[in-house]
């Protein structure tokens, strides 16, 4: 049996950016068909590795060490030269890899054409075939649109298709599916693995989240501060017999609790939100969605993008009028209120979302938290300052300079700032929309704790919108599963986890279940 072909050999690779060390004496050997997952937070060194291998090194990067591709001689890693193997780069749609005014199809085809050295029409045909082979990917014509008209999942399929169309020797996957739901990640990872088996390319997959690492089940290199903490198979690293930092990371892996005691039922307490016969399609052919959320209770609307969960939440809050149905908030029918009156009712609603543009980027950190207090209450400056400080302390932002603008904050800080803004508003209802999307493992753990603390300390009703059952279970007691704008099933989350009635629900649960790493679902 022949030896596997060596694709890459890095020896003592060090990278310093503008004098700041980012990667320290990193060595790696990678063979054809092999996958290595680089796991770590931002600044752990994985970005520097991708920069060097992808040929994106900046002028201020000081690079030392050697790199050897396939059977060629080792050469200094700092030397800029065309690699003798075909390297494909798979970015995240979140990183906005496309130019805004050019159709995605044209941009993807150009990348493939450049890498293959072929005419554009041939590259487009290769791309079409690659998308067909992926199974589940949209057809080629869907990509003949500008990037803003495509959702992140479609873009992820397009990027994956363009990578496999290049028939690469090495794929550099740079947090490729960071902003997608677990079902989508699972499907895309399965497609990536299948193509890897077919084409035999080596794969370097950088991620800050544990789900891809657990799903790929490959060799994992845990990075921190530019250094390798440890290396090994996922199962061993997750076993608890690993470095303390690795253990901390793996503790952040969200796990479904099939035996979790039932929380406070949505059927107790005074009604806060009552929805009667809400039909999101509006053709009147089916029975609309009816449910009730009581004060202090929690309900998760679980479903993927396009399932209708967001439309339902918008209709419930009176942002959009549903074609058919009635919404009663705090004993007032929203359908009969004027915009001004609806606006007054909404003062008792807070929004916490995974969208990073939910806060005004021009506002300072302090102004963002103060605004609900100043807009709705007549408080002295001292009182406002006191409430603000308490809220910022609870979310861990009190040490930040309050005059910094939101635009200069990281995504994690922006999420926590949203919670602080919600805390000072003392809402009756908190709408939490994919709050952990795109965050690193550690940041996800902190956000989960901050939200749980908010819920237990202040007791607002929680309406959680997510495609991730682990998030739903962490933040809510009951769930409604939605698909194609229709309600599939509802009930306490524990009951749904134990006995999902619909295959779609089962798929959502399986997307966040990692056999061997977390508790597997009991036999259904």
């Amino acid at each position, binding site marked *: 049996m022949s030896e596997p072909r060596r694709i890459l050999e890095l020896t003592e690779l060090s990278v310093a950016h503008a004098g700041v060390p980012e990667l320290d004496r990193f060595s790696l050997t990678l063979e054809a068909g092999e996958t290595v997952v680089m796991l770590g937070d931002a600044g752990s060194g994985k970005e520097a590795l991708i920069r060097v291998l992808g040929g994106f090194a900046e002028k201020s990067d000081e690079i030392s060490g050697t790199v050897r591709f396939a059977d060629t001689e080792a050469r200094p890693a700092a030397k800029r030269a065309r690699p003798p193997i075909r390297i494909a780069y798979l970015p995240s749609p979140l990183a906005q890899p496309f130019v805004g005014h050019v159709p995605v199809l044209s941009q993807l085809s150009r990348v493939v054409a450049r890498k293959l050295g072929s005419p554009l029409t041939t590259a487009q045909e290769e791309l079409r075939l690659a998308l067909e082979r992926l199974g589940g990917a949209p057809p080629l014509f869907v990509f003949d649109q500008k990037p803003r008209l495509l959702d992140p999942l479609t873009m992820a399929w397009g990027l994956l298709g363009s990578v496999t169309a290049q028939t690469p020797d090495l794929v550099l996957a740079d*947090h490729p599916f960071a902003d997608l739901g677990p079902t989508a990640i699972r499907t895309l990872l399965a497609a990536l693995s299948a193509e890897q088996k077919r084409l035999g390319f080596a794969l370097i997959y950088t991620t800050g989240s544990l789900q891809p690492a657990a799903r790929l089940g490959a060799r994992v290199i845990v990075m921190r501060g530019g250094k390798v903490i440890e290396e090994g198979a996922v199962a061993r690293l997750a076993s608890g017999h690993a470095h303390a930092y690795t253990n901390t990371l793996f503790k952040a892996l969200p796990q479904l609790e099939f035996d979790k005691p039932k929380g406070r039922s949505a059927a107790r307490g005074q009604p806060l939100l009552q929805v009667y016969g809400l039909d999101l399609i509006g053709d009147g052919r089916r029975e609309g969605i009816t449910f009730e959320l009581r004060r202090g209770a929690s309900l998760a609307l679980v479903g993927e993008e396009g399932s209708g969960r967001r439309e339902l939440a918008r209709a419930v809050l009176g942002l959009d009028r549903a074609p058919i149905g009635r919404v009663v908030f705090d004993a007032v029918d929203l359908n009969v209120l004027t915009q001004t009156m609806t606006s007054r009712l909404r*003062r008792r*609603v807070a929004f916490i979302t995974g969208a990073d*543009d939910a806060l005004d980027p*021009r506002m300072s950190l302090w102004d963002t938290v103060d*605004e609900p207090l100043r807009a709705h209450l007549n408080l002295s400056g001292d009182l406002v300052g006191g409430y603000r400080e308490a809220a910022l302390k609870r979310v861990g932002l009190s040490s930040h300079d309050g005059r910094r*603008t939101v635009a200069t904050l990281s995504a994690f800080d922006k999420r926590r700032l949203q919670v602080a803004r919600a805390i000072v508003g003392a809402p009756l209802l908190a709408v939490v929309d994919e709050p952990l999307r*795109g965050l690193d493992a550690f940041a996800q753990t902190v956000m989960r704790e901050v939200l749980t603390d908010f819920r237990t300390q202040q007791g607002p009703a929680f309406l959680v919108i997510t495609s991730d059952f682990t998030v739903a279970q962490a933040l809510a007691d009951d769930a409604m599963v939605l698909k194609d704008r229709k309600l599939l099933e509802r009930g306490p989350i524990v009951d749904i986890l134990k006995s999902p009635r619909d295959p779609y629900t089962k798929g959502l649960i399986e997307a966040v279940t990692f056999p061997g790493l977390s508790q597997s679902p009991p036999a259904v």
Partner: protein
Amino acid sequence: MSLTSPAPSTPVLSTALRLIGWGGLGLIAVAVSLSDFLAHAPAGAAGVGPMLSAPSEAFPFGTDLLGRDLLSETLHGLSVTAGHALLAASVAILVGGLFGAVAARLPRALSLTLRAGMGVLAAIPALLLAILVIGLTARLYAPLAAGLAAAPLAFVRGYDRVEVQSKSTHAEYARATGIAASTLLRRDLTYEFRDTLATVAARALAAVTIILSTVSFLGFGATPPSRDLGLMIAAAKANYLQAWWTAAFPALALVLLILCARLAAALGEGERP
């Protein structure tokens, strides 16, 4: 995904340009405020020196046809032009930018009507608009006319900036949590104008200075004995070929004033307030 936020950064070049611009405007302001002390002769004083004398030690900028000291005249003219431009820029910002921002939050029909009306006015060259306003009022109101002529463009810019913000995701989230339209307007006024007031003011200053001096050059603006730089350049037309300094020094002062204002706005679209 970064856990800690990166430190905010400011573009070095634009900061440097702004500093140079505001420094220059500061020096002009000092020169203008001390013009009575720095000038060798009072404004319009004829016969101070020989007629059309070239720049010399006694008269660094030379003299004009009436024997007026051009250094003193240029300082007085700069003082008049800068003062009028300041007044006109204030009018452009208040009537244009501020009103535009508020108009974007008015009821939709009214807001769109105002936007359309101002859009039509903005399509008319500001110089013609200023001459029209002067014709309808008096030469005395040239600064007001220049401000009003520049206002439609300022209105459109202010309106469009606020409209973009009002359609943004963060504004929708704010409305969804009961933040009133008045609070959102306060946000826009605070952040769009407080943070950009210096730039907007500098840009408006450059724009109205050009309008004012051109109006004066054409004879619709300042009237003797009050002379601004535009009028001085116009008066030098007769002798320019024989005595270049009569037009060159007032023109240089005008160019410096406009250039400093543009630099203070980091060279951002000088003709538009």
